[in-house]
Structure formats: C-alpha cells, structure tokens
C-alpha cells in the first residue's frame, strides 16, 4: 500500500538533466543497460582471448592480437592470460550481469510493475549509477597501469592478491573499484527494498506483485545484507596493500605477526555464495513471469514459486562453506555445509516444477522472449543438476578447481542469467524504447547463442571431468591433458559462434533504437501487469492516476475474466 502519493515529475528540459544526471528511474535503468552491454562486450572479448589461448596455444590472436600484444607477435602472454581471466570474471559478474539485471531491469521494472511514479529516493538512485560509473572507470584504468590489471582470479584470494602475489597498482585499483561498486549496489538495494515496501499501488499485496519484482526484491535484500561483508574484506585487503597491515599474510609471507589468508576466503564466500543468487534471482523472477505470459496460463503455483525463491534466499546465506571444502575444514563442518547445500535443491525443484507446470498444456507462443525463457529453463536445469556433484564433498575434492566447476557456474550464473537478461530486453523493449526488436534476427540470435553456449559449457564440463585444471596458461604441457586439445578446440569454436551470434543482437538493438520508425503498440504482448496499462514508451510520470490493483499479474484464461480478451489488466476486477 502506498504510504504517500508521489508528485508528478516535471519533464526535464536540458540534455544534461534528461539523459545524463536524470532522476527518472527509467532513464537510469537505460543508463545501466548501456553500461552493462558495453562491459558485456569487453568481458566477451576477454573470454574469446582466453579460449583462443586454450585451443591454439602459441598462436597469435586474430585481428586485434598484434595491436594488443605487439611484443609477443600477437600471442597472449602468460601473465596477461591470468589478468584476462581475472578481469573476465570480475567484469561479467559485477559490471555486466549486475548492471543489466539489477541496475537496468531493477530500476525499470520495480516502479512500473508496482504502480509507482518513481523510486522512493530518486537522488540516491542517480548517485548509485554515477558511483557505478566511477567504479567502472577505475577498473578500466587499472588495465593501463605499468604491471597490468589484477591477476589473482575474480575471487582474489590472498596471498595472490596481496603485495607479494601481485605487486603494482592493478590489484589495488581492482579492490577499490569493487568497494565503490559495492556502495553503489547497496544504495540501489536500499532504494529497491524501500520502494517495494512503501510504494505498491493501493490493493497490491505482496502476492499480487509480478514474480519479477519478487526476484528483484529478494536480490536487493541479499545485496543490502551481504555486500557490506565483501566491503569489509576488501577494506582489509586495501589496508594490507596500502598501509602495511598483515591480515592476510601468514608464515614466510609476513615479516611479523600471524595473518590468515583463509579468513579472506571465509569473508569472500559469506558474500560470494549469496552473490550467486543475487545474480540469478532476477532472472528466475523474470522467467517465471514470461513463461506464464507466453503460455497464456496463470503461473502455476505462483505463491509457491515466490516462497521457494524466498527460502532459497534464506538458505543461500548458510551454505558458503561448499566453496572451501579443500581448505582443511573439519569434516563436521564440510558435512553440515554439504547437507545445507543439498537442501537448496528442494525449493529449486519446487519452482522448477512450477515452471514446467506453467507451460504444461498451455497455448504456447514462441516469440523471442519466450524462446529465451525456455532456454533458461533448459540451461538452469543442467546447471542446477551439475551443482550436486560440487556440493558433495567426496566428488568435489576431485572436481575442485577443474573446468567442471567453470562449466557448472557458467551454466547457472552466465548462461541462465544471460538468456534471462536477453529475454527481458526483447520483452520490455517496447516499454523502454517504444519499438519492437526484429523477430527474425531475434530467433537467429537465440539459436546461435544457445548452440554456442551449450557447446562451450558442456565442453568445459567434459574437459573438467577429465581433470583439466582451471587457470592454467597452457594445460597441454602436461602429458595427461594433451588428448584434450580437440575438445578444447571445439569449445573455442563454440565460443566464437556465440561471439558471432551477439552481432545479430547488437545490429538489431542499435537499428531498432536509432533507426526504426515503426512504433510499438501499448501492449504488444497482451499481458496484464501494470506497466502495460500505460503508453509505450512509458511517459516521464509513469502513471497519470495511481492505479488501483484488483487482481493478480497472471490472470490468463480465468473463467472469471470480465472482458473478451484472454487476459486481464491488474486494474480490472474479476467477476
């Protein structure tokens, strides 16, 4: 229930106030979208360089290799390789997925779907974007420092990330950039949570919110609680590097005192495991909605889905130890963490079954957002199942730090979230920019991406199962890994296919926004959530009159519908 009515924004007049320092949640959402897509491109090129090195060790990276690495004739040097996978992970997680799913769609969707005129703290929202911008600049600047950017892995475990493991400004800037980004995301989280609590339109209970809002809200809760934990770890790491404290230095590495490198791992994963769910929850929410919208059926067990997501949110806070089975934990602890981790499969199975229940016997349509959503169902199923091997102590001891882990977390965090993000872009494009993306290009984009990513991540699991360690520059100097060259070449070709597929998206996206003349209708997908009751693109003030909510978000084919459509707007009453 709205605690108070927001005033109608006045339309900003100048370029600066309209596009740069805007208070409008929709503009900030778009800013985050462009920011995320830019970093997605940078991180993607880094991924291709990593893959190229693994498939064709010692060969020059095509086209831009000679320009980037002139001293080696275009070959990626070993230290640069370490830098590349570190920055690839960091950029994709914190600067691509987070801005696109949480920054862009969190900002865009929350007020629109709960019937508010804006976020509750617009200034905080703007600051959140510009802090993220500063952080991005610092991170990119670190690439140009004399010893290069951070190279200690995205987890930056000490002592790799201390001055002993990585001297030079790169790692310090990495730590600082992440700390600032943490502040930015926390600001966002405060805003999202408060907005969802206080600005829901009259009549909208929590279970009347679309599941997208549920996903984004739960993500915001995890962000608000656990980003400061990472912040504390990063602060101590900065102190170690800059002021000479010895929190994470031990043994011969420390001149005096008894630091503990493992402490950082604890702090990192107390944050890091919830972070996995921070990334995936918005995608789950969005997919749960889209499956219902395009199967023209109510979301099966919507309440159970929402509660399952909530219990996963809670459980995600007590399982972090499964990242650290190999750190000589007591068996009592590892087994407790194993049991807790396994427990997550129960709520996961509930909402997964609900997804299948939603599309079961639906009159499914297959426009681009829907095929991307179905793609999420497929890849998340695979990713989730392979997680069981890593949650089990006995199998994890063998699989730890192999490419199996890389394949697993890319299926869950990268593939699902990427496809979910694209589904959201294709779906809300008309409301964001007032135009529809091209369907043919969208389908080509999906199938090439989908084939490519399965080739990549399935291949990774196979080489990982065969024992290939992650983070080795040239694994094939080891005799037992030599036979994996063909498989790695296949993975790399799949990655290239996936890379090529993204051009179809970029062309489609840029053409639609800047050149396409044809306008989208107000409700092209024929769904009933609040954002589709207003014109496309959404006006500055969102809702002229604050809507009054009278039914749930997925009323499809309900016998109590009042109109002659197969859906009903949330502002309309059921019989």
């Amino acid at each position, binding site marked *: 229930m709205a*605690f*108070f009515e927001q005033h109608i924004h006045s339309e900003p007049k100048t370029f600066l106030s309209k596009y740069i320092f805007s208070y409008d949640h929709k503009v900030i959402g778009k800013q985050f979208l462009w920011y995320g897509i830019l970093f997605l491109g940078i991180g993607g090129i880094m991924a291709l360089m990593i893959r190229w090195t693994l498939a064709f060790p010692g060969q020059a990276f095509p086209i831009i290799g000679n320009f980037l690495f002139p001293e080696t004739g275009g070959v990626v040097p070993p230290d640069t390789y370490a830098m590349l996978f570190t920055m690839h992970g960091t950029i994709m997680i914190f600067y691509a997925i987070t801005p696109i799913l949480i920054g862009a769609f969190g900002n865009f969707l929350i007020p629109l779907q709960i019937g508010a005129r804006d976020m*509750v*703290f617009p200034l905080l929202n703007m600051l959140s974007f510009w802090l993220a911008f500063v952080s991005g600049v610092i991170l990119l600047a670190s690439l140009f420092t004399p010893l290069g950017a951070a190279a200690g892995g995205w987890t930056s475990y000490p002592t790799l990330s201390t001055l002993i493991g990585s001297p030079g400004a790169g790692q310090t800037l990495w730590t600082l950039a992440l700390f600032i980004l943490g502040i930015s995301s*926390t600001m966002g*989280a*405060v*805003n999202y*949570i*408060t907005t969802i*609590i*206080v600005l829901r339109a009259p009549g909208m209970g929590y279970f009347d919110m679309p599941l997208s809002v549920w996903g984004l809200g739960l993500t915001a809760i995890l962000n*608000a*609680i*656990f*980003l*400061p*934990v990472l*912040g*504390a*770890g990063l*602060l*101590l790491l900065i*102190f170690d590097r800059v*002021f*000479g*404290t*010895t*929190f994470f230095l031990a043994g011969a590495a*420390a*001149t*005096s*005192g*008894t*630091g*503990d490198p493992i*402490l950082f791992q*604890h*702090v990192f994963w*107390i944050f890091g495991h919830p972070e996995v769910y921070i990334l995936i929850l918005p995608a789950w929410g969005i997919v749960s909605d889209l499956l219902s919208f395009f199967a023209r059926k109510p979301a099966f067990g919507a309440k159970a889905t929402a509660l399952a997501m909530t219990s996963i949110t809670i459980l995600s806070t007590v399982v972090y130890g499964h990242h650290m089975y190999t750190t000589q934990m007591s068996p009592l602890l590892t087994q407790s963490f194993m049991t807790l981790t396994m427990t997550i499969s129960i709520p996961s199975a509930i909402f997964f079954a609900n997804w299948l229940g939603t599309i079961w016997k639906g009159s499914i349509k297959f426009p681009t957002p829907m095929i991307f959503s179905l793609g999420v169902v497929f890849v998340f199923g695979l990713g989730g199942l392979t997680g069981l091997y890593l949650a089990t102590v006995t199998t994890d001891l063998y699989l730890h730090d192999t490419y199996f882990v890389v394949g697993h977390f890319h299926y869950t965090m990268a593939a699902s979230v990427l496809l979910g993000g694209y589904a959201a872009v294709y779906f809300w494009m008309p409301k964001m920019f007032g135009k529809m993306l091209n369907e043919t290009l969208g389908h080509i984009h999906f199938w090439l991406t989908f084939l490519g990513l399965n080739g990549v991540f399935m291949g990774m699991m196979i080489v990982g199962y065969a024992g290939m360690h992650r983070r080795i520059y040239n694994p094939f100097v080891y005799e037992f890994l030599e036979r994996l060259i063909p498989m790695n070449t296949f993975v790399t070709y799949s990655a290239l296919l996936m890379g090529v597929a993204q051009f179809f998206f970029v062309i489609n996206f840029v053409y639609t926004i800047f050149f396409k003349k044809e306008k989208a209708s107000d409700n092209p997908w024929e769904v009933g959530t609040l954002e589709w009751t207003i014109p496309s693109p959404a006006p500055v003030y969102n809702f002229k009159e604050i809507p009054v909510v009278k039914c749930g978000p997925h009323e499809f084919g309900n016998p109590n519908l009042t109109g002659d459509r197969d859906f009903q707007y949330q502002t309309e009453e059921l019989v």
Partner: protein
Amino acid sequence: MNKALEANQIQGKQAVHAVGMTVLLVSFAMLFATLLLGYIVFRLTTDTWPPQGLARIPLTLPTISTLIIGVSSVFFMNFEKAFMTNQLGKMRAFFGLTMGLGLGFMLVQLELWNSMKEMGLWVSGGAYPSLFYSLTWIHAAHIVMALVSLLFLVPRLFEGYDMDRITWVQNVGKFWHFLGLVWFVMYIVMFVY
C-alpha cells in the same frame, strides 16, 4: 493543505524513511559485524592474547571515548526534542554540544593512535596492531561521515522547525546513535574483554 492531510503526509514520509534507514543501518551493521568477526577469529585462534609478547592497550582512552560518544547521543536526543518543539536556543545549545563531543571523540581517537605508537604498536607490526588500527580507523571514518551529515542540520539552527526536515534530523540521529552503539560493542569486544 488541511491539517489532517498534512499530518498524514508527514507520517507517510517518516515511515518511508524509517524503512530506508533500517535497511541502510542493517548494511552498515553487517560491515562492522564482519570486521568484528575477523577480530574474534584472530582472537580465538591465537594461543595467548595479545600475541607476540605485545602489551594490551590500556583502557583509559577507550573508556573516555565510550563516555563521550554515549553522552553525545543523549545530547542529540535533546536536540531532536528541541527541534520538534521549535526551541531555537535549546536547539543551538544541544547541537553545539553534540558536535563538540563528536569532535572530542575524534581527538581522543587520535590520542589513542598516538599512544599505541608510543607503546610500539605499529600498523605493520602483525595481526594484533593491524586489527586495532583498522577497526578504529573504519569506525572513525564513519564518525567523520556522521559529523559531515550533522552539518546538513546547521540551517535548522537559524530557521527552526520545518516539517520537510523532520526526516533529516531523525536520519542523522539514527546514524549517530548507531555509531555510538557500534563503538560500545567494539569497546567491550576489543578493549575490555
């Protein structure tokens, strides 16, 4: 706007800020909780405390800090009361006292760091001094933030009560009390125990 509607608006706004501030303070609390967790882990896994034959930090200065910050919280409460009843004189007095004690707290902390140096505890001297310096630094940095946010209330000392600024006063107050509470926990966990 009629009186009832106005009261309604104020109440709504206060509720909104209460929710936002709660989330924010939970975030800050997690930051300090993590730092204290680090402290406790070091403390519990070290055989003798303080380690390496280092000396314990005397309680005098931290106790003075604790008293100062506690009293400053009381002064701020009085400032808030005076603000709600629009008593300019009282507001100025209590604001000055809060601000003064805040600065006083910072001075005592500086003195604490000096005394630690005199004891031979240097930042780079191992985990024990690392912990004491870093945790007090981070807390002090937040105190500086709080002092800056107090400055945002200075216009109130001249213009008096304004219903649009109630939430400002309340939010700054919550942050101030919160930092006092954090210091008290740090005092007990790090200095007394």
